[in-house]
């Protein structure tokens, strides 16, 4: 993956994938009365990019994803939550990957938790009270579960695509 064109096409593909997965997720009514509980399918391409293309590309992908999805399916307020969640999540994952203390799965779980925490913090600031902390336990557990699922899937993809990428070098 040395050529610039390779990188550009790879990141473009991941962006498209993230966008489509967000759309699919928006169609499935998953949250049972609890806001913020989501599988976060669109984080699979983010994880794959982080491991195969490096941190800079992953950050760009993550931020552009939020922007695209909010403009298309969301509102101003949903943009703020998503952005806070995505930023906190991607920064955490960058550091954990760099620190090399977790496997892909662990990095993804931490990312899932931070994603939910980021949204919770923004919600607290917007409604200006701590009542949203009521959702903290359920968001914590759902973050772990979603992070684990995403981590396992991303790990499989990273291993398989990684082999292909090295072959083409």
């Amino acid at each position, binding site marked *: 993956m040395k050529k610039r064109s390779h990188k550009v096409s790879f990141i473009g593909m991941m962006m498209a994938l993230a966008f489509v997965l967000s759309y699919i997720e928006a169609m499935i009514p998953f949250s049972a009365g609890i806001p913020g509980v989501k599988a976060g399918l669109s984080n699979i391409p983010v994880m794959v990019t982080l491991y195969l293309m490096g941190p800079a590309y992953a950050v760009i992908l993550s931020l552009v994803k939020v922007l695209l999805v909010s403009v298309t399916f969301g*509102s101003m307020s949903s943009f703020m939550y998503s952005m806070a969640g995505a930023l906190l999540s991607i920064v955490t994952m960058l550091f954990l990957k760099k620190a090399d203390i977790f496997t892909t799965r662990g990095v993804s779980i931490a990312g899932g938790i931070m994603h939910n925490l980021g949204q919770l913090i923004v919600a607290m600031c917007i409604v200006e009270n701590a009542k949203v902390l009521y959702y*903290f*336990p359920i968001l*914590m557990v759902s973050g*772990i579960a979603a992070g684990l699922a995403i981590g396992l899937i991303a790990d499989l993809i990273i291993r398989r695509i990684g082999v292909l990428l090295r072959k083409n070098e």
Partner: protein
Amino acid sequence: MMKDKKLKNELYFIAGALIVAAIAFIIINRYKMISTENASVVIEVDGRTVATYPLCEDRIVEIESYNGGRNIVSIKDGKVNVTEASCPDKICVNHKAIKYNGESIICLPNRMTVTIVAGSSETDGKTY
């Protein structure tokens, strides 16, 4: 780093996160069990209290919320529900009715919260 070591780190991390969640859950549940006999329903918009009603009286009120938004709150049989809202996501409308102390329904787009607060109802002033 060794794979076993990483797995161990992960297990500690998950266990830690679950313990924090469990502690938070226990604290919230304790708080919930406080009697709602004299509780009131506090409605806030953008961090300011706009209305307070006793939980024991049935009523339906319309709340003018943030940025021209509108929410209809219904209090019935000691349960509070948001029945209508002008927000796009309708999370507050789909939220189940609340009846325990400290529970709340939050409409983020309209910046409106409905909370049950124990023991601060108007009937408090009465002496028995």
